[in-house]
């Protein structure tokens, strides 16, 4: 949509001329799509939004029992349940955002082949839906803290920073996979695998201090390591913020995001032809 004074020119290879401005113009559509997904998500379920609480809660209970009580891994100053909770919520957010965004193009194929809008809106709006789920499930963490009469310090104010980091970490691979999925439906099977594998590779059930010192930086290549450690630090895990590791996590996330956006933009023009 452009004003009459400003003609819109369509030419091969020219689609990107006003891309970012277009993206801003279509912000309402972005909002509506996110709103649709939120509305639809728990329709016709008996307990509705409670699912956003039950899923992370049950996984948390299992992890606490297995890693804390059975394997007796060190918990540091935090109660083990809070330790797991502080990791499980960002992890669930990440895995939901990743799996939803990587399906976003194919599940909206009818829109892509019939209407124009910057396609970036689709994966981005699914991430927002996961963010809402995350906000709801945050109630669990608050509940846990009340249960253990535990109050976090000033660090908790930095929490949004790590939420954004988790969001970016999910969006990068999400964009990449959803663009690939348009052409190669194989990626539908790859995402669940990444998510399942990542749950054990990331420090969800244990503290990252369990990893031997010499491997720590390599381990931080996983962007979720930075996010989870950051979450724990915000909630008062005393070990302090490992800044070099965080920097590595952040740069992996950013690199993936830049690569994801670039690849997405490159493939975007052909989506309607192959979907």
């Amino acid at each position, binding site marked *: 949509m452009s004003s009459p004074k400003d003609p819109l020119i369509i030419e091969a290879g020219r689609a990107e001329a006003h891309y970012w401005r277009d993206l801003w113009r279509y912000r309402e559509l972005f909002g509506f799509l996110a709103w649709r997904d939120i509305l639809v998500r728990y329709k016709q379920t008996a307990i509705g939004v409670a699912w956003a609480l039950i899923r992370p809660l049950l996984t948390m209970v299992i992890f606490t029992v297995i890693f804390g009580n059975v394997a007796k891994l060190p918990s540091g100053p935090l109660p083990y349940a809070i330790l797991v909770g502080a990791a499980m919520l960002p992890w669930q957010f990440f895995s939901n955002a990743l799996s939803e965004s990587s399906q976003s193009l194919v599940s909206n194929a009818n829109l892509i082949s019939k209407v124009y809008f910057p396609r970036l809106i689709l994966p981005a709006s699914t991430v927002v839906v996961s963010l809402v789920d995350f906000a709801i499930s945050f109630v669990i963490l608050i509940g846990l803290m009340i249960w253990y009469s535990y109050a976090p310090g000033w660090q908790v104010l930095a929490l949004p920073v790590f939420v954004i980091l988790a969001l970016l970490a999910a969006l990068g691979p999400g964009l990449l996979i959803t663009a690939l999925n348009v052409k190669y439906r194989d990626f539908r099977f790859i995402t669940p695998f990444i998510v399942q594998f990542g749950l054990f590779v990331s420090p969800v059930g244990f503290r990252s201090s369990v990893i031997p010192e010499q491997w720590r930086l390599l381990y931080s290549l996983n962007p979720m390591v930075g996010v989870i450690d950051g979450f724990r630090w915000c909630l008062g895990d005393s070990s302090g913020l490992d800044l070099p590791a965080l920097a590595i996590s952040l740069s992996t996330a950013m690199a993936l995001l830049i690569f994801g956006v670039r690849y997405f933009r490159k493939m975007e*023009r052909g989506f309607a032809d192959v979907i």
Partner: protein
Amino acid sequence: MKEAHISVDHVGKRYSICHKGAVGRFASFRDVLMSGVTRPFRRQSTPAESPTKEDFWAVKNVSFDVGQGEILGIIGRNGAGKSTLLKLLARITEPTEGKITLRGRVASLLEVGTGFHPELTGRENIYLNGAILGMSRAEIRRRFDDIATFAEVEQFLDTAVKHYSSGMYVRLAFSVAAHLQPEILIVDEVLAVGDAAFQKKCLGKLEDASGSGRTILIVSHSMSVITRLCSRAILLDKGTVTHDGKVEEAAHRYLEASHNSASASWHPPTPVGDTIAKIHGARLHDLQGNSPPVFSIGAPLCCTIDYELAASAKRALPAIQLVNDAGTIVFGSAAFQLRTSERIGCLSATCLVPAHLLAEGYHTLSIGLVSYNPNTLHAFEREVLALLLIDDTTGDGTRGDAMGQWPGVVRPKLEWMFAA
């Protein structure tokens, strides 16, 4: 001259079609990986080994301009490139070559109810669909009542659309689209929805839109819709424009091409019929004997049939049957007036259809030779003649100077007077 709202300059769109499916539409990642792995071990790929890739130009070298407030019809057979052209204009897919300039807000309507979600209520879907079609939240809110009233679903606004009847669903979907107010509207076949009354409403809505200065591009297979709405049309064939000009001419060429070359005249290579009665040919013409591409319903229409009768078939009569666009038989007529003559040999008979009788639209004529009492069908050639009738709205017809749809299988001019 006003600046063109849409200008299309030598636009082409190429698709690659693969015959061996290897790197086709739903290529599997494995295939790509495998071909990457095995390539070094293969000799320079011979043409027989590599999947045969073929270039296919869905649209090629298409150029046209559309001025402000103009309604341009796009017609063509299936696969002629109409939908691809619309997709290019709607920015859904990118042209391979050429340039399109659009001046104004564009909304495209390639499908009714794009993005409708069955789980959402009517109200929610109006907002969602409106946003998808490019309306802002404020705009939708402003027109919300109009949309609901137009769709006749006010009572069910808070019901999930999956519980709607298909008619309600389509009406709601079209209603949202009909309330779009872009400067350029691109419409594909969507008028083929709903019952007749609703279609009429939709056509009226489109006419209003163009009246208020909007530019409309419309693709349809219904010649009566195209000829009613547009003054100009382009005819696409195999991706190229074969005609750009008056809609009647374009419609006629399209019908000629798409109906097995049925046209205003028909002359089979050998006469058809049984041993005693044969038809040599037939043609449609006006009173002056001309066969224009399009006939006006305001002038008489003549159909001349050349036939041959043996002495044993001297009671046989030529007959015609007129079928309209919808497949309805408008009338059948046999030449009973000529039966008394009992002529034989090569004959020629003309049937005169009076002016102001038929409705506009595409019609076909079947020609036969029949004997009655006992009944014998000597020859019957189905839909060999075709004609396009238009109502040129000069004001002397049934519809007077009324615009809009005028339904009915026939359009006779009847007498009206004040009752005494």
